[in-house]
């Protein structure tokens, strides 16, 4: 079983290669079969290996497979080696399982697209890169996957490249994540310089003996890795690319920009948790970044028109929760929220994609409305996803994962009342914008007639994801409510458990407050948007409210700030330096050569006598020199 590990990434790679080589000649049915089949088989292999792992592997055991040595230069000897432990198992499961559902959906969603095979080729390459990212046993191979998913993200955001705006969004995503990646590369250099190895298990084992806790080098390294995670996971201040990344097709948003790639930062920090535990400051910054991000993105989500942008900001906000959990040392809670979030956010994106397609590519929620009865299946699945997102108590999976984070934000040794307050206020906002999105989309009068209903290929993944968005929460229940810890028990093989400072008996009070926050958010929006809509109209007329609304709508002006600080000076320099200053020197060389050439070519008269004359004069000069010297 152990040695089948290579099959998990190899199958999507094979699918990608086949589609790239022969995609143009295959019928669309075969393309879909290749694209979907490779991921589905990979998911099957994952489930087989996973079951084997769960039933037989002992606590500290990992499945490890070395495929070959990448290079061997002066003692630097990275291997192409895969390693599977509980943490990567969760990620691999989410990637292949949700990935295959999204691929099935795509087979229906993209059916009319002329670049069908290109789409599936990119998607397969993405799944391959993502699997390499989470299965790699050393940081270098992980970095390969890390860059691979960045490339696929770029290719798929700009999938409809005829529209220049999509190309711009793709470039923006690529460049901004590259900033984080550069920091991460510096982090890798530091780690290699300090440890002499990039194998993750060795780093984790040696970290405590190489570095003293809270030394500057430990903090700097952890922060460099954090910067890499912030870029990929769209955390403040590198979050501006994700809302624009919604230019890609909806399945891409579901797979890459909600379920898997954007959580790579969470994986990186969880994987390197030993380094972060060595630096209290770095962990505090992780928590702080998460907390600020979840609030900032939540307010922005509250004011968007575009349904996909609401979901994008909510993704940023939910990943903020994961960072917050990582920061307070609630490692398993972060991974649990990652898994639950992958289910419900993929569901929400796919359902939103179905709505957008049915309405003839209408993204604006204010032009939707009244879809409750027209698309009942999409409505019910979307409702389940939304309930999970807003953490509706007891019946939704999102409640169990978010409640854990809220509790640890208060109770963990590294938690604090401020973090807890931000988190619970974020929960309030989450409930509010989710309800706003639901009401605008599904209730009220019909503003756009639906063109056609989504087919079976698209609805079945929705149903399966909706099922998991409810059920997945039950594998981890709070201690005062069932106390069932299947998920965290599994992850505690890899990740340390959280050290508590508060008494567990008070947990129910916090759960009650979380209930109130959720229902408060729902109720507030219910009043303003449904029961008494004139109130929101009156609020809109207030000019200070309007400017605040616009400020949030534009993502707190981050884009404008970056334009002002980085883009505009750069463009300005580029403009004044249009005729490249460095090029002047080389232009000089060319013009001198050209003049010399014109001068000499004038001697080429074709007159034989002049040539002879030249030869004679030359001979005389040489002879004269010979005699004289």
């Amino acid at each position, binding site marked *: 079983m152990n040695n089948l590990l290579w099959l998990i990434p190899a199958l999507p790679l094979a699918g990608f290669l086949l589609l790239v080589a022969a995609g143009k000649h295959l019928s669309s049915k075969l393309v879909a079969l290749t694209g979907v089949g490779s991921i589905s088989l990979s998911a099957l292999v994952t489930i087989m290996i996973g079951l084997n792992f769960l039933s037989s592997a002992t606590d500290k055991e990992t499945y490890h497979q070395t495929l070959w040595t990448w290079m061997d230069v002066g003692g630097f000897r990275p291997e192409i080696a895969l390693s599977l432990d509980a943490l990567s198992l969760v990620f691999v499961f989410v990637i292949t399982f949700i990935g295959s559902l999204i691929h099935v959906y795509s087979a229906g969603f993209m059916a009319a697209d002329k670049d069908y095979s290109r789409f599936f080729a990119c998607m397969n390459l993405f799944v391959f890169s993502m699997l390499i990212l989470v299965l790699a046993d050393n940081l270098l191979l992980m970095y390969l996957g890390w860059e691979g998913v960045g490339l696929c993200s770029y290719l798929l955001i700009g999938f409809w490249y005829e529209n220049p705006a999509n190309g711009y969004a793709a470039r923006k995503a690529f460049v901004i994540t590259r900033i984080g990646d550069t920091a991460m590369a510096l982090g890798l250099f530091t780690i290699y310089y300090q440890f002499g190895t990039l194998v993750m298990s060795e780093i984790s084992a040696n970290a405590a003996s190489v570095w003293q806790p809270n030394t500057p080098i430990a903090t700097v390294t952890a922060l460099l890795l954090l910067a890499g995670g912030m870029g990929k996971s769209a955390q403040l201040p590198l979050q501006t690319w994700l809302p624009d990344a919604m230019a890609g097709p909806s399945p891409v948003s579901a797979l890459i920009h909600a379920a898997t790639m954007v959580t790579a930062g969470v994986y990186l920090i969880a994987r390197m948790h030993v380094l972060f535990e060595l630096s209290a400051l770095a962990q505090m910054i992780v928590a702080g970044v998460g907390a600020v991000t979840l609030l900032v993105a939540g307010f922005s989500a509250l004011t968007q028109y575009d349904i996909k942008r609401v979901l994008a900001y909510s993704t940023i906000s939910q990943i903020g929760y994961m960072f917050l959990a990582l920061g307070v040392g609630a490692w398993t809670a972060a991974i649990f929220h990652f898994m639950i979030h992958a289910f419900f956010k993929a569901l929400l994106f796919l359902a939103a994609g179905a709505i957008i397609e049915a309405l003839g590519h209408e993204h604006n929620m204010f032009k939707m409305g009244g879809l409750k009865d027209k698309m009942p299946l999409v409505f019910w699945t979307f409702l389940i996803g939304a309930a999970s997102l807003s953490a509706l108590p007891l019946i939704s999976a999102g409640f169990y994962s978010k409640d854990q984070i809220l509790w640890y934000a208060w109770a963990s040794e590294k938690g604090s009342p401020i973090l807890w307050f931000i988190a619970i206020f974020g929960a309030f906002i989450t409930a509010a914008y989710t309800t706003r999105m639901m009401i605008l989309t599904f209730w009220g009068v019909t503003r756009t007639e639906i063109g056609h209903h989504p087919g079976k290929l698209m609805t079945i993944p929705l149903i399966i994801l909706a099922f998991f968005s409810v059920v997945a929460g039950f594998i981890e229940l709070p201690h005062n409510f069932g106390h069932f810890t299947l998920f965290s028990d599994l992850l505690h093989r890899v990740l340390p458990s959280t050290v508590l400072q508060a008494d567990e008996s008070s947990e129910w009070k916090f759960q009650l407050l979380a209930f109130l926050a959720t229902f408060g958010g729902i109720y507030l929006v219910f009043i303003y948007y449904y029961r008494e809509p004139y109130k929101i109209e009156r609020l809109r007329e207030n000019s200070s409210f309007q400017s605040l609304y616009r400020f949030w709508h534009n993502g707190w002006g981050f884009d404008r700030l970056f334009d002002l600080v980085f883009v505009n000076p750069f463009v300005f320099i580029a403009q004044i330096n249009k005729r490249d200053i460095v090029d002047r020197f080389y232009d000089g060389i060319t013009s001198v050569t050209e003049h010399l050439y014109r001068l000499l070519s004038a001697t080429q008269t*074709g007159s*034989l006598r002049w040539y002879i004359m030249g030869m004679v004069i030359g001979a005389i000069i040489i002879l004269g020199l010979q005699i004289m010297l």
Partner: protein
Amino acid sequence: MSSSVSTEIVMLLAALLFVLGITGVIIRKNIIFMLLSVEIMLNASGLAFVAAGSRWGQPDGQVMFIFILAMAAAEVSIGLALILQIYHQHKSLDIDKLREMNG
């Protein structure tokens, strides 16, 4: 054979002939005369070889002269053939009119 004429005089004569030849090549317009002048230059160098050979009592100078003679024969035959062709093509032997290959 006693050298009645000193080597310097012969070398001077050879140089004179050589300069005459070069002058001919440069100032003559007719290709045939240019060819003739080239022959004069060849003979001047041949004379210099022979004189030098006799000065050092070596046969090499005369060997070189035989070489030059053979080469000159070949050169004249090819040169005359070229001149014939040029005349056929251009109906002229004036070197100043045959300047098609200017830069």
